[in-house]
Every structure is written in structure tokens, then in C-alpha cells.
């Protein structure tokens, strides 16, 4: 059974997972690129996006049973709501938990702890305000989920996976263009390469860092909504595991490297599904870890190497 006759059945849903990981991983990688810090609270940005998207879409759908074009609109509204929430939370996060420490040249571990503190604070606040049980998201489309949309190599692709993958691809391409071709992207790349020099050249570092957090937050928040869409549920603790996975994915691809995060995310998504088929779901993390260690031993800076500036 393992890796042979049902290969594509496992591979295809793995791609959808992978895109979600990639979206979240970008938040880690972007922040790491400009600050060389692990933003431990990014998983809560993701969670907030889930809630933002859920409230807006549930309110928008109300009692309707959307189908056809209106489904597209609802998904779009949800993504935007999730992204905006994520962006706002990421912005606040940077202001509260990072900037004051940066002003004081605090040690790296102080940032880590303040991010952990922020993470605890945010998810428990969400639990307090929105209840500690999973909330259900109203489906934006009425289709029989058991009916596949289409098949690839004999593996059926369902609508949820297709929506997730398509939205993710669009966002990833937009981000790549943004970093490559705009002044904003130039600023990010400049700060990533050498913050001191960038400052000398007149780049407003504070603003670039803020913008980087917001971009990461937008993507993470959108991922939060898509995640809620796929599982039809959002809960205050939903950030932890996907956050951890995405962080692993970012490291796998080479943290600080945008394309690395995308590659790492996809790879991890697929590897996890294949590992599940071979060893069972409870061993997935073990396999993923061994692969990570192997990759790091062969390529200590991740698959695509490190720098945000250089290879993106």
C-alpha cells in the first residue's frame, strides 16, 4: 500500500496541505528575513485570520445556500476578511512585542519570550472571547463533497482542496511579484540583506519591518480562513500545530528564503501524507523530523539556502 498503488491518492491532498503550510511559512520566513527572529506568535496571527474570516463569512452567508458565482464571492470575502484580520493582528504584534525590544537592542531570546507571551495572550484571549469549543463555518458552496471536482492521475480532487490550492497559488505569485518588482519589495530585500546599510541608504527600517509583518499577516490570516474552510471549523487553539509545521517547512526550505518557504511547505505537505500511508498517522511527525534532520545535515541552510535578498 505504501507509496505504490495509491500514491496519487495521497499525493494530491498533500499538495493542498502543502499550500496552506507554504502560506503560513511565508510569515515566518519574511519576518526571519528582515529580523533574523522566529516569530513564535505567527500561529496566533493565523488563528485570528480564521476567526476574522469565520465571523464575516457566517454573517455574509446568513441563511443563504450559495452556489455558482456567489460562492466565488463568498470565498473571496472570507479570504479578504481573514487576511485583513491577520494583517492587523500582525501589525499590532510587531508594535507591542517587537518594536519596544528592538529599540533596546534586547537579546534574541527576549524577542522569543515576548513572542511566546504574545502567543499565549492572544489565543487565550480568543478562547475567552469566542468560547473554547470549535466554531463552525458555514459552507460557501453547496456541492456534494463526496463528488470529486476532477481527477489527476486517477486521484480525485475535491472542491475544497482545489479552492485552497488555487487561492494559495494566486497569493504566492502576487507575493513573489511584490517582493521582486515593487519598491516595497526592494525595501524588504535591502533590509534583509543588510539592515545597517539599508538604513544608511535612507530606507525607513521601522516601516519596512512593519510592512513585512503585515504582509506575513495577510498571508497567514488568509491561510487561517482557508484552513477553517477546509475543516469547517475554527477554534482558539487551531494555530499551534499548523504554525509548528509551517515553521518546520520554512526551515526545510531555508528560512528567510521566500521560494524556500513555498517549496518547504509543499514538500512537507506531501511527505506527511505519504508518511501517513506508510507508517500511520501517529508517526507522521517522526518521519517529518527525520527528513528535516537529514536535509539539514546535507544542506545546513535548508534546501534553497538562506537569504531573502539573494534568491527571491
Amino acid at each position: 500500500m505504501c507509496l505504490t498503488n495509491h500514491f496519487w491518492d495521497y499525493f494530491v491532498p498533500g499538495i493542498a496541505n502543502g499550500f496552506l503550510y507554504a502560506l503560513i511559512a511565508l510569515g515566518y520566513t519574511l519576518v526571519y528575513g528582515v529580523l533574523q527572529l522566529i516569530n513564535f506568535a505567527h500561529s496566533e496571527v493565523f488563528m485570528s485570520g480564521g476567526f476574522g474570516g469565520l465571523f464575516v463569512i457566517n454573517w455574509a452567508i446568513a441563511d443563504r445556500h450559495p452556489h455558482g458565482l456567489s460562492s466565488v464571492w463568498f470565498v473571496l470575502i472570507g479570504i479578504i476578511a481573514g487576511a485583513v484580520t491577520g494583517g492587523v493582528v500582525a501589525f499590532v504584534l510587531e508594535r507591542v512585542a517587537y518594536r519596544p525590544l528592538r529599540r533596546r537592542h534586547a537579546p534574541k531570546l527576549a524577542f522569543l519570550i515576548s513572542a511566546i507571551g504574545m502567543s499565549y495572550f492572544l489565543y487565550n484571549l480568543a478562547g475567552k472571547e469566542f468560547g473554547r469549543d470549535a466554531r463552525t463555518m458555514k459552507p460557501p458552496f453547496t456541492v456534494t463533497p463526496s463528488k470529486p471536482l476532477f481527477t489527476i492521475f486517477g486521484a480525485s480532487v475535491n472542491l475544497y482542496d482545489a479552492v485552497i490550492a488555487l487561492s494559495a497559488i494566486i497569493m504566492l505569485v502576487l507575493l513573489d511579484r511584490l517582493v521582486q518588482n515593487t519598491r516595497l519589495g526592494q525595501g524588504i530585500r535591502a533590509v534583509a540583506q543588510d539592515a545597517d546599510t539599508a538604513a544608511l541608504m535612507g530606507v525607513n527600517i521601522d516601516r519596512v519591518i512593519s510592512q513585512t509583518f503585515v504582509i506575513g499577516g495577510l498571508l497567514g490570516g488568509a491561510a487561517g480562513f482557508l484552513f477553517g474552510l477546509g475543516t469547517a471549523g475554527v477554534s482558539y487553539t487551531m494555530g499551534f500545530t499548523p504554525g509548528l509545521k509551517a515553521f518546520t517547512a520554512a526551515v526545510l526550505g531555508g528560512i528567510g528564503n521566500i521560494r524556500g518557504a513555498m517549496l518547504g511547505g509543499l514538500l512537507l505537505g506531501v511527505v506527511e501524507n505519504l508518511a501517513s500511508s506508510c507508517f500511520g498517522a501517529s508517526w507522521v511527525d517522526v518521519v517529518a523530523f527525520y527528513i528535516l534532520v537529514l536535509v539539514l545535515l546535507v544542506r545546513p541552510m535548508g534546501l534553497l539556502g538562506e537569504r531573502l535578498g539573494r534568491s527571491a
Partner: protein
Amino acid sequence: MTRRDLRSVLMGVRARQLGTAVLGALVVDVMTGPSGSLTAPTRGLTGSLLSIRAVIFVALGVALWAFLTFRDRLATYTSRWTAAIAPSRLVADRRYRRAGYAALLAAAIAVPPYLSQYWQEVAVDQIGVYVLLALGLNVVVGFAGLLDLGYIAFYAIGAYSCAYWTGSLPIRPPHVFNPFVTIIFAVIAAMIAGVVLGFPTLRLRGDYLAIVTLGFGEIITIYANNLQSVTGGAQGPPKPIPHFSINLLGIHYQWKISNLPYYYLLLAFVVLILVLFHNLENSRVGRAWTAIREDEVAAAASGINTFRYKLLAFAIGASTSGFAGVLFASKIQVITPLSFVLQQSILVLVLVIFGGMGSLAGAVVGAAVIQWLPNALKTYVDKADLFMYLGAVLVVMMIYRPQGIIPSRRRSRELAMAEAGLVEADALTTASKEV
């Protein structure tokens, strides 16, 4: 700068502070306000923001701001007051420090019998064991500057070693031992695990080391959870792990369910480890770690085998953790994989940094404060919100005192220099800089 510029800048600062005060007041309002629920998700927010509470809190915030901003005399008074009680000032003076430690030790010996059973229990299970853990991680993170996020795995290895050698696991050991004896096996097992993990990974840079150790911690828990026939799975060992006992040279003593004997046993171990680590810190080894933390290349050029010293730090940290695992297992008698999850690793890291990285006193005080805090808080706040308060405390602490409660002298110098922009605050993530 003209006088007017200065004034407008000051006004700007004041306005910002007012804004911070109002926002802070609203955050505290929401934190302490009513909760929402699944069916009424906005009840909490509206209940705290659209009610008289909000007005009270904002008024309090503004009042405080006004108080501090316009009563300069008072402000200087408060700052002098805070400066006077700031532990760092007292701790800086050696005489005070000696006396302080002696007083602390005396209090640690004399006070517990007068505490309630509950606080004795907390002092053992939640403070004592975590003081040991924090001391061990302090060697790894504080002394050697290595970020280890899988530290709790060694604790698990210690606890399960104890369970194995006392015959509590489904698989039988060749010979059943008293928990005291299992300390040796557990420490060795944890040390070997530390070396095995460290050997391939310590060449990696700071952040990569963090994720690899994190993964290691996760898989140890997964193994403990999945290998039901070996570890008992999620339920833990089927038989309770025995308490400590001494049966030597005619002395018979059995540690039982009451907490005080365990407390004193732990206290003795903590003091022993404090002495050992204090000696270590002020020796060739401790200086080598500081050198590696500050400048790995210069350290190597000064003849320090950086890899070996990192591995040593890892092994010492791991064995301390394993040791704590035995004490924990034998005290609680029940272990489950849930006791060894990532959040526990993070918790221990928080203890170390909150207390003051690289400082032995800091590790002790940090563990005591952070572990005591939720137990003290839970009388006042909704228990479900405990971690929210803890998170807020961490953020506020890092903003105002990133060096921790009692930073080590070396660390606080490094931090002071970093604040002045002279050097990097730590060498955790800086790769070997260009030579």
C-alpha cells in the same frame, strides 16, 4: 534644537504615552472583563468595552498617565523607589548578595513546615522540580548560548528510565531497583541522548538547532505515546512508580505521600547542583562557554574546542533534566506523555529567561516566580484565562526588563553593551562571523 522643538517633541511623547495608557487600560479592561462564549461571541467584548467598566478603566488609565506626567516630583520619587528596590542594584553588591542568599536558604529551610499542604505540594511538584529543570537548561541556554527547545525530552527520558528500572513499565528490567539507584541510570541515559542528539546537530546554527531540538522533543513524546507495549502509551506506566526509600547500613526511610520529606530532598539536591554549577561557571569551563557565546571564532583561536564545549553543555543540561525526571516520576508516581510536550520545554525556557539568562540565582527565582504566579493568580481570575495573564506578564516583562529578574553579571554587561550598540546582545544566531 530650539526650545519650541523640544516642547513639541515632549508633547508628542506625552500624547503617545496617553494613547498607550488608554489602549493599555482597554486591554486590561477586556482581559478582566466578562467572557464571551460559543453562542454569544461578542458578549465578552461588548460587556467590557460598551459598559461602564470601559469608562472606569480609561479614566484610571488617564488618571495614572496624568499623575505620572504632570507630577514630576512624584515621578522621580517613584522611579527612585523602583530603582531602590530593583533587585539588580542589591544583587550587584557582593555583601548584600551573600547575605541575601543565606537568608533565602534559611527561609527555604524554615518556612515550608508552616505552609499549607497545598503550597508544600506546589513547592515540590511545580516549583522544586522546575527549579532543577531551569538550572539545567540555564547551562545550555544561559552559559553556552544554545537554544534548546526539546529540553523536556531528557526529562521524559529520565522519568521513563526511572519507571523502567523500578519495574513499572510493561517491559521488565533485568533487575528492579530503588528509585534512588535509578538516578544513575536515568542521568546516564539522558546524557547519552543529549550527546547523540548534539553530535550531528550542534554544528548547525542557532535557529536550526532550535527547530531540530524541538523536533527531537516532539518525537520522544510520540514514541512514549505510541509504543504502548513498551511505555504503556498515553495512559502511562500501568504500575505506579514507587516512592524513594533508603535501605542502607541499618537506616530505613521511606518517602511517602506527604510532601515535606520530598521538599527537603529536593532542596538538598537543588543546593548541591547550585554549588556544582557555581563552581563550573567560575572555572575554565564556564569561561570557555562565555567565550563561545561572545565570539566563537576568537574562542576557537584561543584554543577552545567549541564543539566539545557545546556538547558538554548539552550533556550537562540533559543529565540535569533526566535527574529532575526521576524526582518527578518518583514523587508523582504517575507519568504520561502529556507531561513532556513542547509547551513544557517552552515553559522551562521561559523560566530561565524570565529569571535572568546565565544566572543561577535567576533560574531559581524565575522558576519560583513563574510557577508560583498561576497558583496565586487563580484565586483572583478565571482559571481558564490563566495563560492569558501569564502571556501578558511575559510581554510586559520583556519590554521593561529583557535581562530578567536577576541577570548574571556577565550577561548584564553584554546587554548593556548591546543597548549602547557596541556588540551583539548574544551569539545565539550569529553564524561564525566573517574572519
